[in-house]
C-alpha cells in the first residue's frame, strides 16, 4: 500500500519535473526569438487565470477535452482503440442540433436531456460499426475509425449545407436550437455554461465506472489480456463493444455540449480536433480519469493563456504550438529519461 502511494508520488513529481523542463525549453526558444520568457509566461498565466472571464474561459475549454479524454480512456482501457471520436462527436453534435430544431416545444430540461441522449445514442451507434468490425471480423479499428471520422465530417457537412442549411447568416450550419435548450452561460462574456456541471457528473460517473465497478474491472482485464478475461468468464467481445459504445456516447455528448452550450447550432467544422486533444491527454495520464481532468485543465489553460501571451508579447502563436509539443515530448519521455538519468548517477557513484 505504502509502496503504491510512493510510486504515485514519484510519477507525479516526475510529471511536474518534465513539465517544468519543457517550460524551460519553451523559455529558451522565446529568448532565442528575442522575447522575454518571463513576460511571456507571466502573460500566459495571467491570460489563463487572471480574471473571472479568463478563468471561466479556461474552464469552458476543459469541457470537450475532459469528455473526449474520458471517451478515449474507456475504449483504450478495454483494448479497443477508438480513434474515431471526432466523427462520433460530429454526428452527436448534429443529433443534438436536430433535436433542438425539431422538437422545440418541450420543457427546457426535457429538450436538453433528449438532445444529449440523442447525441450519446448517435455517437454510440456510430462507434458500434468499427466495434463490430473489430470484434467479429478482426478489422483493425484504428484504420476504420480514422476513415469513419472523415465520412462523418463530410456527411454532416452535406446535411448543414443542403437539407438542414440555415437561412440566417450564410453559414454552413443548422438553425439555432430552441432557446429553452440553450445551456445557460455562467460568467459574463465567456463560453462557460452549465454543461460543466454535467461534465463533472459524467467525470465522477466514469471514474466510478472504471475504478470501482465490476464492469470497470472487466474492461481493464479485457484490455490487459483478452484471453485471460475470456478464460475467467468475462465475455471480452461484449465488453469491447460495450466500451466502444460508452466511448462513442461520450464523444457524442461532447458534441452535444458544443451545440447546446457553445454555438447553439451545429456548425460545419464545429470541432477543431477536440478528440485528438482528448486522446493525447488520456494517453499522457495513462487513461486515468482523475488525471484526465487535471491534464485537461492544464491543456485548456495552455490554450487560453497562449492567446494572451501572443497579444502581450507578440510571440507568434506557432511558437506556442512548438512549446506545447515540447511539453508533450517531455512528458512522454519522462519514464525513459528518468531511467537514463538514474543510470548516469549510478555510474557516477561507482566511479
Amino acid at each position, binding site marked *: 500500500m505504502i509502496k503504491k502511494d510512493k510510486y504515485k508520488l514519484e510519477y507525479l513529481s516526475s510529471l511536474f519535473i518534465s513539465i517544468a523542463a519543457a517550460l524551460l525549453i519553451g523559455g529558451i526558444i522565446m529568448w532565442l526569438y528575442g522575447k522575454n520568457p518571463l513576460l511571456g509566461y507571466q502573460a500566459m498565466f495571467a491570460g489563463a487565470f487572471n480574471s473571472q472571464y479568463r478563468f471561466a474561459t479556461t474552464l469552458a475549454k476543459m469541457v470537450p477535452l475532459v469528455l473526449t479524454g474520458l471517451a478515449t480512456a474507456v475504449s483504450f482501457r478495454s483494448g479497443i482503440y477508438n480513434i474515431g471520436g471526432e466523427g462520433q462527436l460530429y454526428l452527436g453534435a448534429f443529433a443534438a442540433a436536430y433535436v433542438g430544431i425539431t422538437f422545440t416545444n418541450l420543457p427546457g430540461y426535457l429538450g436538453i436531456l433528449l438532445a444529449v441522449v440523442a447525441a450519446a445514442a448517435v455517437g454510440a451507434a456510430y462507434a458500434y460499426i468499427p466495434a463490430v468490425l473489430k470484434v467479429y471480423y478482426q478489422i483493425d479499428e484504428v484504420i476504420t475509425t480514422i476513415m469513419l471520422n472523415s465520412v462523418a465530417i463530410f456527411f454532416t457537412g452535406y446535411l448543414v449545407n443542403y437539407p438542414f442549411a440555415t437561412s440566417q447568416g450564410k453559414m454552413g450550419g443548422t438553425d439555432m436550437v430552441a432557446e429553452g435548450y440553450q445551456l445557460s452561460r455562467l460568467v459574463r462574456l465567456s463560453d462557460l455554461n452549465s454543461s460543466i456541471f454535467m461534465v463533472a457528473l459524467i467525470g465522477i460517473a466514469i471514474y466510478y465506472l472504471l475504478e470501482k*465497478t*465490476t464492469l470497470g474491472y472487466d474492461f481493464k482485464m479485457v484490455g490487459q*489480456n483478452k484471453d485471460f*478475461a*475470456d*478464460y*475467467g*468468464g468475462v465475455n471480452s467481445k461484449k465488453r469491447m463493444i460495450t466500451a466502444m459504445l460508452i466511448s462513442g456516447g461520450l464523444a457524442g455528448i461532447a458534441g452535444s455540449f458544443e451545440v447546446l452550450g457553445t454555438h447553439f447550432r451545429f456548425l460545419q467544422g464545429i470541432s477543431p480536433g477536440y478528440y485528438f486533444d482528448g486522446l493525447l491527454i488520456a494517453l499522457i495520464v495513462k487513461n486515468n480519469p482523475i488525471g484526465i481532468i487535471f491534464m485537461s485543465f492544464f491543456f485548456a489553460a495552455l490554450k487560453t493563456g497562449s492567446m494572451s501571451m501572443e497579444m502581450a508579447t507578440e510571440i507568434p502563436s506557432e511558437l506556442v504550438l512548438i512549446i506545447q509539443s515540447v511539453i508533450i515530448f517531455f512528458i512522454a519521455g519522462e519514464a525513459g529519461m528518468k531511467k537514463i538519468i538514474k543510470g548516469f548517477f549510478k555510474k557516477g557513484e561507482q566511479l
Partner: protein
Amino acid sequence: MAEELIRFEKIRKEFPGVVANNDIDLTINKGEIHAIVGENGAGKTTLLKILYGMHQPTAGKIYIEGQEEKIASPAQAIKMGIGMVHQHFMLIPSFTIAENIVLGYEPRQKSIFTDFKKAEKITEQLQAEYGLAVDPLQKVEDVSVGIQQRIEILKVLYHGAEILILDEPTAVLTPQETEELFEVIKTLVKEKNKTVIFITHKLNEVMNISDRVTVMRDGKKLQTMATESATKEKIAELMVGREVLLSELERDSKQGQVRLEVQQLKARDNRNLKAVKDISFQVHSGEILGIAGVEGNGQSELVEVIAGLRELESGKIIINDQDLSESSSGEIRRNGVAHIPEDRLKNGMSKEATIAENLLMGKQYQKDFAANKVHLKQQAVKKEAANLIEEFDIRTPSAEVSAGSLSGGNMQKMVIAREFSFDSPILLISQPTRGVDIGAIEFIHNEIMKKRNEGCAVLLVSAELDEIMRLSDRILTIYEGQITGEFENNKDLSKKEIGLYMTEKRGEAN
C-alpha cells in the same frame, strides 16, 4: 583429465530489489554435461544469460579457457562458440525453419541478398548431420514445440557453438521427444566434443544424462557434485532446503455420482483442423481422471472445449446433469467448473494487473465482492487476496504488485489459488506443474489430491506421465484426437504400456 573450459568467479547480478546471483563460483569442464538445478527464481537462467552476454554481471569475472572475457552481447558469445537455447523459444513464427536457423548469419548472394537456397541446403545438411529431422520450408508457426526445440538446437549448432546452454529444454517435450533429445545431446558430447550446460527441474533427467550437477538456491551456488555420487533425494533436499517426499499420496476411496460427462465431442484447432474426434467419457466426484498423451493430440483443445473457450463442432457437454454444450465460459464457470489452464501466461493471468486483481477474476460478480453485481467491494477483494496468498504460500511483497513480477512457480501457485478457491465441484487441470520446481510440485500435487478427497471431480491433463500416474484414479490415453485406451490406475500398470497407447505403435501392446 577434466579440463576447465569456463570459470565463473564471484559472479553477482542484482536486479532492482533482487540479488539474482550472489557471488557465484562455478567451473564447467570441457566435454561434460553439466546440469544446473534449483528452485524457481534461484537464478539459474540469469547466470547463464550472463554467460551468453544477455545480462552484464554487477560484479565478477568469467574465464574461458583460462582467459578473462567480457561478454558484452550475444553476438560476442556466439563468436566465442557459446550457444543458448532459451527457456522460451526464440523463433520468429512467420519465418520458415531455414530462415530461423540462419537468422543473423545468413548465407549471402552478391553480399547483400539472402541466399535462401543455400539456407535450405544448410538446414538439410545440419539436420542430416545431427539427426534432427525438420522440413526447412515449413513455417515455425505451423510446427510443434518439439520441432521448435530441434530448430533451436540446430540454430545454435549452425552458429558453430562448442558450448551449448539449454534452459529447461525438456519442459515442453513429450517423453519420446525428451529421449530423442538426450540421444542427440549424448552424440554431440561424445562425437562432436561439445560441452553442454542444461537447466532442468526434472531430477530423473539429471541422473540420466549429466556428468556433474550444480545446485542453486536463492541466488547462491550450494554445491557442485559428480552425478554418480548424488541421489535424487539428496539433490531435492539441497534444492528445497528440506526433505522432499514425492511419496505415495493419500487417497480416500469414495467416488460419487457423475459430475462431468462429454459425449461424442468434436472440435477443431486454431488452424481449423480436426483436433478432437469423437471423444466421450465421464468423470465422477472424488475421482481424478488423467488424460495421457503426447502433446498436440487434441488434449488442449479438449479441455478448452469443456471450459467453453473453444467452439464445439458437435457432441454434448453435461455438467452436473445439465446440458451446457452451447454455453459460454462464464456460464460454465458459474455452473461449477474451475480451470487451471496449460499456459498460465497466455490466459491464466494478466501480467500487468496486481495479484489481487488476478485473484479476483471470475469472482467479481459474486455477492461477497460486488454489491448488486456493480459496486466492487475493495476491502473484501483485498482480504481475499491476503488469505489466498497466505494459504497457498505465494511469495510476494504485497498483493498490490503486478503479477508479472512473480517467478514462474509463484505465478502458477497464484493461478491454482484462484481456481481452487471457487470450491467448484469440477476441476479441469492442464499441465499443473510445468516449469515448476520440485518443492512446488509437491505442494501442488498435495493440493490436487486434497480437492479429490473433498469430492471434486478432476480432469487432469499432463505431458508428464509420472504426474498422471501419481495422481490419477483412472487414465485415458489419447492419440490424434481419439481415446485409445482406458486404464484403472494401480501398481501393475506400466509406464511403458501406457506410452505405447499414446503412439502409433499401440497395436504392439495388444
